[in-house]
Every structure is written in structure tokens, then in C-alpha cells.
């Protein structure tokens, strides 16, 4: 269970230690990539909690979302329109929704646990 957290910390350390400069015009892509990754991560957690988790969907969604967002941003840069805003908007909304669902599920579970704890001694 701690493996993903370890992986997250490892990735963070790697990113912080990496000192490659990218041109400023690609910073939009980076922000979108961050959003897409976070969205997919929370989506995966939600799916796990809702018992609908499928690793294929998760993995493909992760990479496909990132690529799609990057492609959208690329198109936007080339057309001179801030199309990456659409990706940010979509990912942001989804991120909030996912987090909200996770929160609700967790709340329900905690409630259930308390209920069960109260019930068991009686039974």
C-alpha cells in the first residue's frame, strides 16, 4: 500500500534533482501535464474506491490524457488560440469532481464503520 507513495516521493525527488532547462514556450505543456497526471491519479483512486478500477483504463487514461492535453496545447500554440485553457478547464473540473466523490465515499465509509462499531458490541 505504501508503494505508490514511495513512488510518488521518488518521482518528486527525481524531478527536483533534474536540472534540464526547457524553452519557455513549452511551459504550457508542463502545466497541462501536471493537471492531467493529478486528474488521472485521483480518478484512479476514485475508481478503486467505487470498485470499478481497471488497470488498463487507468494506465491508458493516464498517458492518453497527457498526450491529448499536450496535443491540444500544441495546436493552440500553433493556431495562436489558448486552447490549452480548455484542457485545464476540463481537467480542473474533473479533478474537483473526483476529489468530491472520494470525499463522499470516504465519509460514507467512516460513517459505516462507526455504525458497525456501535452495532457490534450490542450484537
Amino acid at each position, binding site marked *: 500500500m505504501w*508503494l505508490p507513495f514511495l*513512488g510518488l516521493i521518488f518521482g*518528486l525527488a527525481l*524531478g527536483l534533482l533534474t536540472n534540464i532547462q526547457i524553452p519557455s514556450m513549452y511551459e504550457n505543456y508542463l502545466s497541462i*501535464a501536471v493537471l492531467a*497526471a493529478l486528474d488521472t*491519479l485521483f480518478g484512479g483512486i476514485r475508481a478503486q474506491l467505487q470498485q470499478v478500477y481497471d488497470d488498463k483504463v487507468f*494506465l491508458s487514461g493516464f498517458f492518453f490524457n497527457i498526450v491529448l492535453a499536450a496535443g491540444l496545447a500544441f495546436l493552440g500554440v500553433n493556431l495562436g488560440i489558448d486552447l490549452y485553457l480548455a484542457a485545464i478547464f476540463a481537467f480542473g473540473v474533473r479533478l474537483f469532481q473526483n476529489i468530491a466523490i472520494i470525499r463522499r465515499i470516504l465519509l460514507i465509509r467512516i460513517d459505516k464503520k462507526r455504525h458497525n462499531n456501535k452495532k457490534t458490541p450490542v450484537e
Partner: protein
Amino acid sequence: MNNKKNSKGSFFTRKQFELLIVCITTGFIIGYSYNQAQDKREAGTIDSELFEQEESYREELIAQQERNKELSEELNSLQEQIRKYEKSFAADEKAYQKLVEQAEDLRLLLGELKGEGKGVRITLQDGDYDPKSFNPNDYIVHESHIFKLLNELKISGAQAIAINGQRVMATSYIRCNGPVITIDGTQHPAPFVIEAIGDAKTLLASLNLNGGVVDQLLNDNIVVSLEESQKLTMPKVKVES
């Protein structure tokens, strides 16, 4: 159950492996963008510092350029002035040369310089003793004769005159003192040798005019001899205190 076995066998399941990869990637992206943002912040501060520096340098440059402009204007005006001076110099140069020549002539005349050059030598000698003559003044050289001679020489353009080797200046005085004449306090006996530097031809011609100085002198029984000299030297005036 199967899953659990599998996980035990290869340390973690495929699901966990995928999750790990996703987490690593997410972490990497987040960390990298954080790094990038920090770099950008630092770069921003550096940029602003550089900008301020640049601004100050630019102001300095502008000030320097203005100063340069002022200086070049000053230079132009000074050069203009110099040109004016040069022009006036060029115009005055001839006048200067004339003045220098004139000064030289005047110095010669004043006797401040040693005179040297072509000229004439005139010797005035008292006439031979004449027993017929009652008065010896009739045949000796008087200062008036010398005056006449000097005047004639000066008029004819003599640049320097000396009598018996003593320079005669504009301020010199000549006095008759019996058989001798006194020039500036120095007595000179006859014969009197008068030397004059100048154009010998002109001097001689003017002296030898009909009814001129020489005729008058001869009339007064004075022995006059004229001589053209290629090189006459005259001493400087000895200023006697």
C-alpha cells in the same frame, strides 16, 4: 487468492506496478515543474536586477552622449575661432614681416644693433692751411657741415651712421668744440670719417647732386673724399651712464 499468490511471488502485483509507474511519473512531473518555476522565479529576480543595471548603464550612456555632444559643439566653436585666428594671422603675416623689417631698420638707426653691410665712407678733412685766409674757421670742418652731411645721408635712406667709429643715433648730439667735435660726450678730431650703411649708389648720387652737400663742403674749403665700401661694420652704441 490467485492475485495474492502472484503478488507474493513477484513481490508486487501488476496493478501495483502500474500504479507505481503512474505515481513516479506524476511525482516527476510535479517536481520538475516546481523546479522549473523556482528557476523562473530566480531568473525573474535576476532579470529585474539586470534590467535595473541596464537602465542605470543606459542613463549613464545618455549622459555621456550628451556630454560628448556638448564637448563636440565646444570643439567646433573652438575650431571656428582658431580658423578665424589663422585667417587674421595670414592677413597680418605680411604686415608683420613689414613691421619686423621696419623694427630692424629702426634698431639699426637707433644703434642697438651692430651694423654691417654695404655703404659709403666719407672723409672730411680740414682744408690746408691757407696763409691768405684771415680766419682759420674758414677752412676747418664745423659741426654744421657734418649736420648737413648726416641729414643728407638720412634723407637718402642710410640705415646706420657712424662718425670715426662711433654710432650716431637719433638722439645723438653733435657739438663743435674748437678744432674737435663732440658726439655724445666723446671728442673726435679731424679728419672725420663718416660711414653710412645703405644703398651706396643712392647715397653717393644724392651726395653728389649739383649744388648738393659735397659741392657746399668743397665750397667751404673742406677736403671731401667719397668711397664706396662693400662691407662696413659699425659697433653697437656704447651707452655711457
